[in-house]
Structure formats: structure tokens, C-alpha cells
């Protein structure tokens, strides 16, 4: 099934099977978890901050390949980034980085890690859904 191969691209599967920056951070400055109410999937992130820069970040959680690979990719991008730049990461950026066609039913999976970032790291109030 070529379609599946396209959807579950090698690097997505690689990030799912070998997640980067996976685990917890001792003495994190910020810790936040979000759930996907549709399926109970979870992504949590721990951040260590210094002078407005994300020194270190780790994620934990459980969920499908899309949500976990998206979180893994997100941590790679965030390390060493200034918070004000992290704040600019958009839904389109996240989807673009995944590089696959995401069906409406799976958008929440793909954007769960962005929600963790927005609600947790920026201290933004819980808002409505990204889509």
C-alpha cells in the first residue's frame, strides 16, 4: 500500500520508535501535560529556562505515531530557542514539519504538542481548539 507508506513516512516512524528527548527533566522550570479528549492520548513537556532561552526540553506521554513523532520533532526544534521565537511557532509550521497529509480526524493528534507548548510554556489560558 503505497498510500500508507506515504502517510507513515520513515522519519515519522523513526521519531515514534526512537523518540528524541524522551523522558523527564529534574528540577524543570515549567512542566505541562495536555490530553486529547477524543482518545485519551497525552503529551507532557518539561522545560529548563535561562534568560528567556529554552536550555533543555524533554517530553513524555503516550499516543499514536503522529502525536508522539510530532512531540519528538517539536523538542528538537525547541532546544536552544528563545521563548519569543517559540511563541511564533504556528499550526502550519508543525504540520509542515510533519510533511504529510493530515486528515481532519488526526489534526488533534498532530497538534497536541503545540498545545502543550502554548498552554504550558507561554502560560496562555486554555483556549479552544487549534483547528
Amino acid at each position, binding site marked *: *500500500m503505497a*498510500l*500508507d*507508506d506515504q*502517510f*507513515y513516512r520513515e522519519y515519522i*516512524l523513526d521519531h515514534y*520508535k526512537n523518540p528524541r528527548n524522551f523522558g523527564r527533566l529534574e528540577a524543570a522550570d515549567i512542566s505541562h501535560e495536555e490530553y486529547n479528549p*477524543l*482518545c*485519551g*492520548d*497525552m503529551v507532557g513537556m518539561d522545560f529548563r529556562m535561562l534568560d528567556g532561552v529554552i536550555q533543555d526540553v524533554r517530553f513524555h506521554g*503516550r*499516543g*499514536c*505515531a*503522529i502525536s*508522539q513523532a510530532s512531540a519528538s520533532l517539536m523538542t528538537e526544534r525547541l532546544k536552544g530557542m528563545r521563548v519569543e521565537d517559540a511563541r511564533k511557532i504556528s499550526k502550519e509550521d508543525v504540520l509542515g514539519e510533519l510533511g504529510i497529509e493530515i*486528515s481532519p480526524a*488526526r489534526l488533534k*493528534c498532530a497538534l497536541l504538542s503545540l498545545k502543550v507548548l502554548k498552554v504550558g510554556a507561554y502560560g496562555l489560558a486554555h483556549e479552544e481548539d487549534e483547528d
Partner: protein
Amino acid sequence: MSTLRSEVATSGRYDVGVIRADFPFFDTGVAYLDSANTSQRPRQVVEAMEEYFTQYNSNIHRAVYRTSMQATERYDATRRKVREFINARSVKEVIFTRNVTESINLVAYTWGRQNVGEGDLIVLTVMEHHSNIVPWQILAQEKGARLAYVDIDDQGELRLDQFHDLLEQRPKLVAFAQVSNTLGTITPYRELTAAARAAGAVVLIDGAQGVQHVGVDVQEVGCDFYGFTGHKILGPTGVGVLYGRRELLEAMPPFLGGGDMIKAVFLDHTDYAGLPEKFEAGTPAIAEVIGLGAAIDYLQGVGVDAIRAHELDLTEYAVEALSEIDGLRMFGPPALRRAGVLSFDIEGIHPHDIATIVDRHNVCIRAGHNCAMPLMHRLDVAATARASFFLYNTKEEIDRLLVGLHDAKRIFS
């Protein structure tokens, strides 16, 4: 009514091809293994609703012209069919709701508010659908009542020892599913009901997954309340049923106020209508109720026993077929004690990914918490994949699921 009645019911032979020919959906070529979520509808149901819309569309219980009387008659005919289908004593015990969620909420907000007080015990089970948990949590919070949950054993069957221990605390209400929507477990609902009633409890059975697969005789079972939903039994969405014992319904306050549920309205008070109108405020889902009547005709034409036998055959086939997948784990009891519901997971592949990949093979299955998050916690999983079977499913559809599952294994290997 249908060709089916003559060809399947009277021949005594179960011909799934004849049944499938009544379901236009199957022309799409999709393998549909998600009937525990919502069923497909036979053309007889669609045609009954279309006939209402095009031939005698009008409101019920209000007008004197003949078209309206025809609508009223067809609406009331469904109530008689439901009464017969579940063997209620009277049509006054059959209340139309939106779905089983509303049926349970109706009981919680009327009987519950009137009868459950501080410190009272409500007994549920850990494998309930959210719709048989959340309304009772809301009631318990409002009244200061207690909730207790009967656990399951490793096979997904209720811990009867715990159940009987809880009955010694004289609960006010015992509420449980006839069939688990996730594990497919057919609970010993007759025994549970008899024991709970003997202990002085009121008993509510959630029949959302039961009435179409194992059937019910509410008088024989002896439950006080029984709910089911139209869209899972070949009917349309937007219509459900609450059965209640007449003595209880008569003593209960109304749920929603408005038109149709009144005898007379004055500026300072209202005299309520009798049963069942007291619980049916406002213009109901007329077309949907009429469609539900056609769905019940269809189910009875095939026969619930014949449906059960067909589903058992499919379930046994599926259990064996899925066993060949490495790392696949099935939840729930042996086929004989389960309805056609099969929840499973595969090591290293999230159920969402399983469902996405089998969808690429044109096979529909559910993936997620199945609206039973407490059960997911109990099983220590985030989610399951779930295939469910109904009267129109075939072994060929299960074979197609198997091909999709092998593909998922390959992609995630």
C-alpha cells in the same frame, strides 16, 4: 413489509446476501465493522422516513386534519412496536427520548433528584459507557450521595462477589450495561437485577448494546428502567427509548416542561399530562420515531436469535483470525459470553494508527477509549481498537480487516 421477511425469516435460512441487498451503504464497497458505534440503515427505514416527509408531513397530537392524524397514528404505532419488542406491560411505559444518554439523564434528573439523598449509595460498574457514569456523578455531587463501582476480572466479566457485597449496603440504585460496548461482555443482567431488587434497589439497565444483539423482555428481567438508542439498531439518529415501570414513572416529576406534556396550563401552575406524554415535551423527532418503527420491524423480521447466532459465528471466526497476528491482544470474555464486539491492541502500534491503516484498506473500525475511560484505566491501556459485528457483516469483511492488520504490522515493523 420487506422482501426480507419472506426470504430470510420464513425460509429459516440466514442469507446475509439477502440482508445486505437491503442496505444501500454496502454499494460503497466499504467493510463496515463499527456497528457498536452506529449501525447502517436498511432502505425500509429510509423509505418509511421519506414517506412521512413526502406523503403526510405534519405535526402530531395537535391538528384535526387527516394528514396530521396519519402522522400521529404512525408515531404511536412505533410505541406499540417498542412495547411488543421489549415486552413492556403498557405503551405508557415507553418514553421516546433522543438517545440512551437522554434516557439515563431523564432518570437521574427526575427519579434521582426525588429519591437519592445524602449518603445514599449508587452502584455502577467499571465498564460502563460514560453516559451511564457522568449523570450519576452529577447527581451524587448535587445530593452528597456515594458512588461505588463493581470491578471486572481478568476476562472482563463482572466481579459478582463485589456486587453482592455492595448490595449489603442497601444501594438506592444499581445501574449497569446489558452488554459492554468495549469488551462485548454480556452481563448476567437477569441475576444482577433480581439480586439488586431483592436488596431494595431500583435497577436501570443500559441496553444500548443489548437490545439488538441479545434482546430483552423487561417483565421477565424485572428491571425498573431500560434504555436503548435507535441509531445502533438500524434506526435513525435522534431517537431513543426509555422504558420505566409505570408506578415509578407516575410518581416521577417531569423532565422537560413545554408543549405536549401538559393537561392544562394556568398562570400560576400546570397540570401535567399522563404517561407517556408527561416525559415528551415539545415536538418530538417524528420522522425518526417512524424510522425506528421500521427498524424494529426489520430486526424482528430477521429475529434477534438468528442475529445473535450469526454474530457468534462471526465473533468466533474473528477471534481465531486475529489470533494469528503477532503481538495482538484481545480483551474480554470467550465468544459465547460476548456480543459481537472485539476490542484489541497490537504491541508497538497505537490503535489510532491501526485504524488509520485499515481505513486505507477501506475497513472501518473504532479506535480510542470507546467512551469508557475508566475501563481503559482499569485495563491499563490508553485506547483500544474495536471491531464490531451486526446482522449484515461477513467473514470476508473480517478477512479484509486481517489484511489491513498485517499491513500495519509491516509498516511498524
